[in-house]
């Protein structure tokens, strides 16, 4: 007989972007709502930041309880300060399962908070379900570079998971409005174990919101090859609002593209209307980031390249010759 100490609440940590609710939050909310229904528990939302009244107000349409963690020290993400805030809040909430977005910051946050509240933790989860007995939680996680799927059992609460983006559909807001509970925090600057020196912003990239993406891979040997991708992206702007350039990991490691343009397991997960895979071989680590794409076009001179198995349209040929003709023809289209 397993004695199970069950928590009461499924908690979703809202994601912010430029002072607003990030779209990812609605995906997390669907996962949280579905799990709360299955577990027979309730969904709560935690909003953390500085001046997050507007976001909290919006979140109240998705849950009966919104815990608002509003503090000047939460303006920018500092892992220790955020972990302290989360620990104070979660300790008072009797969490069953805490759901975070799988982002660089949250992986760091989850490991710290889990150690401090004694939670079990799993990252990069693609599906949550109720187990057969004792209110166990089943978590699906792609492993070995997305070459296999493991379903983990998580026993006792509290449990923490980070959820992979672009897996769940967004949750629509409900009819009623819940309560906003301002949570008093005891934070001070000395909790931060690292000191901020400066921020080096990269170019602003929004791969997750792109309608069309032109991405290059290992088959692009010279940096001059990038101009073909840029030409195609420019041409696609005739047809799509947001067009971005992307890359698989080899072109980031060799410096052709910044890390913010990396698509795949350790980069962005994308779901555009149209995805061009240019000279990309099709490793599972890259495919894991593009499966949500509506249409995938692969251009590769190697007819054996595995990318063709995951593409809707395939062109066997040298991208330096295919793209200029493709772009020229696209410009001529009425």
């Amino acid at each position, binding site marked *: 007989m397993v004695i199970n100490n069950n928590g009461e609440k499924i908690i979703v940590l809202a994601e912010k972007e430029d002072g607003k609710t990030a779209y990812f939050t609605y995906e997390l909310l669907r996962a949280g709502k579905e799990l709360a229904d299955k577990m027979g528990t309730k969904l709560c939302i935690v909003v953390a930041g500085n001046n997050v009244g507007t976001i909290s107000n919006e979140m109240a349409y998705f849950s009966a309880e919104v815990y608002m963690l509003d503090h000047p020290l939460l303006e920018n993400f500092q892992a220790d300060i955020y972990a302290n805030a989360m620990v104070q809040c979660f300790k008072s909430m009797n969490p069953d399962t805490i759901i975070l977005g799988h982002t*660089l910051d949250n992986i760091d946050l989850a*490991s710290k908070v889990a150690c401090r509240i004694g939670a079990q933790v799993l990252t990069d989860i693609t599906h949550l379900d109720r187990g057969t007995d004792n209110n166990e939680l089943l978590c699906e996680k792609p492993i070995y570079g997305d070459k296999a799927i493991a379903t983990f059992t998580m026993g006792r609460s509290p449990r923490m998971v980070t959820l992979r983006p672009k897996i769940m559909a967004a949750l629509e807001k409900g009819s009623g409005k819940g309560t906003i509970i301002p949570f008093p925090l005891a934070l001070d600057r000395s909790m931060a174990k690292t000191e901020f020196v400066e921020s080096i912003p990269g170019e602003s990239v929004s791969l997750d919101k792109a309608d069309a993406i032109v991405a290059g891979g290992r088959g692009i040997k010279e940096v001059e090859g990038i101009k073909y991708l840029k030409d195609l992206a420019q041409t696609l702007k005739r047809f799509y609002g947001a067009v971005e350039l992307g890359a698989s990991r080899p072109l980031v490691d060799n410096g052709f593209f910044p890390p913010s343009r990396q698509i795949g397991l350790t980069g962005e997960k994308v779901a555009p209307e149209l995805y061009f895979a240019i000279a990309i071989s099709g490793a599972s680590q890259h495919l894991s980031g593009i499966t949500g794409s509506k249409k995938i076009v692969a251009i590769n001179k190697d007819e054996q390249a595995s990318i063709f198995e995951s593409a*809707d349209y395939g062109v066997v040929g040298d991208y330096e010759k295919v793209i200029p003709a493709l772009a020229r023809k696209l410009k001529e289209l009425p």
Partner: protein
Amino acid sequence: MKDLKIIVCLKPVPDPECPASSLEINRETKTILPIGVPPVINPYDENALEAALKVKDATGVKVIAVSMVEKQPGGVFHKVRTGADELVVLQDAGFKDLDSYSTALVLATAIQKISGYDLILTGRQSADWSSGLVGSMIAEILNIPSITIAKGVRVEEDSVIVEKLKKNGYEILKTSMPALITMSSEIGDLRLFPLKAINEARKKPMTVWGMTDIGISPEQIAIRKIFALSPPPSRKRDCMFINGQSPEEKGEVLAQRLRQDRVI
């Protein structure tokens, strides 16, 4: 100034470049058996070793590599021994399939036994279970500062200056030592070593510690609880190959086809 002591935690994994078909998934035993796939050092952990060597290029450093394995590791550590000054292998049948926290606990306990460390470097995540948790959990257990997913590390007196990747761009952070940093591939691949160094690697000190040597008891650690293993959902799509006499013609036909199918 005394030499800095840098500990690099690294892990052997089946070569992540292997095709999916070479991983045999046994649903009964819930195990994955790599068929004909050689073990390699987790690529991000090699990046961590390279980061340690970059610090060593600038100042006096002793690099100690630490790895937790369940059985005799064979030759997988040869490159590590070439780059590091010392290797500590934590080897015990009881270290098989540990969860992230238990892995961190074993590594942290061994690191405490090594003692006198200034920096701990690890890869940002492993290529097999890719949880990305063990590094910062080691720091939590040792109660030292940690910075994750770094692309650069340098030491300045008693501090370490770290370039930490953000969604767009990066930020520069500073912290006191000892500290733990997890490294990403942007730091660069592990360097190539001269033949002489490779030949002499075997002469470097290597220590093997089991569970009792570091004072861990089986009750303190737990294994991953796997309910099921399965192949990934199929990503197969029906690929329509575009025909043409030349690459240029194929490009034009592709444009027409995308219009015809109302993709564009």
